[in-house]
């Protein structure tokens, strides 16, 4: 690339912009995507959502729900049973954390249980999502706060 007197300001602006992007990625509570609302107080009790006429209850134990700890995920689903077990994908809204799936196994007529870990994000962001997928039905998303 041919050197030009305009390149210094341009590159400086580029470095400043890149730095701002990087710093914003590190700030807790700041998310470049649309603001995410908590809809599940998992620290107090289980959470409930509806999908296609079915009720889905999500429970995470033990309390308080902490990151980097072995957790038990329990899902109760009303209605007919499934040909395949549902599963949970854990992630953070607005930030790629890699695939983290909780495999659920049937434990009773309407209950599925699995083990998983919610990892810690060094950015300090504590809002996590559990996407519960019911085969042939769809997915419900629970958004909650986790303790680091």
């Amino acid at each position, binding site marked *: *690339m041919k*050197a*030009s*007197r305009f*390149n*210094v300001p341009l*590159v*400086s602006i580029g*470095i*400043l912009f*890149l*730095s701002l*992007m*990087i*710093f914003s*990625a*590190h700030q807790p509570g700041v998310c470049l995507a649309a603001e995410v609302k908590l809809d599940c107080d998992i620290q107090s009790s289980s959470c409930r959502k509806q999908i296609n006429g079915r009720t889905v209850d999500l429970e995470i134990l033990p309390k308080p729900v902490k990151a*980097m*700890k*072995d957790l038990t995920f329990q899902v109760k689903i009303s209605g007919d049973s499934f040909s395949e077990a549902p599963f949970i994908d854990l992630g*953070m809204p607005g*930030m*790629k*954390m*890699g*695939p*983290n799936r909780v495999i659920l196994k049937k434990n009773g007529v309407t209950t599925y249980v699995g083990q998983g*870990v919610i*990892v*810690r*994000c*060094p*950015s*300090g962001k504590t809002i996590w999502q559990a996407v519960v997928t019911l085969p042939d039905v769809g997915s419900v998303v629970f958004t909650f706060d986790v303790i680091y």
Partner: protein
Amino acid sequence: MLSTNSIYILFFTTGVTIGFGHCIGMCGPVVISLSLNLKGGPSVWPHLIYNCGRTLTYGLLGGIVGGMASFTRFAESIDGLQKGVMVVAGVIITLMGLTMTGWIHTSVIFRAAPPVGTFITRTFKQLLQKKKHPLMYLPLGLLLGLLPCGPVYTALLAAARSGMEADTTLGGVLSGAGLMTCFGLGTIPALFLVSRLTDLRWLRHREKVYKIGAVLMIAVGVYFIWKGLRF
């Protein structure tokens, strides 16, 4: 159920995705700092060696969690170490920035620094001097591979699960190490791209840009120290 080869490919592609979607934002400051620190010197080999160091650390961590077949037990045991690594990374970047601005001479730093061993002091001096041997970036990569990172934790979680499924402890070690090495290799393209974008040898009057970059490096370094102390 995925075949063994498919899982390794999956980890590699996950690394590529995470590299471009996460690593650039979170580890970009480190890579940019290392680039600016080279100040117009050859940058391909130092960055490749840095990334090799980082990947070796990931492989080592993967082998450990695979052998232990538990992510949470391992994570508890290295919590303090990772905090320290983040603080040390911040100190290194801050000092790099200070020497690049010319505000502090390297001799002042080493007179004031506590005695930490000949090898560490010699490595540090090499990093802060104008002429740097590319191999100096290997210990840096090995160390900074220990920085706390959400996606790395997620990958380690999967590596631990592979260890649970292995027939023997050695099998767990090998599968964990292999998976994490594939993940680390996948993250290299994104960070290497950042290093190429901040290679300013072609730029006239780049000294001004280095000064601006050095000030930003100090800010990033201080931020890392603060984050590490709060982690």
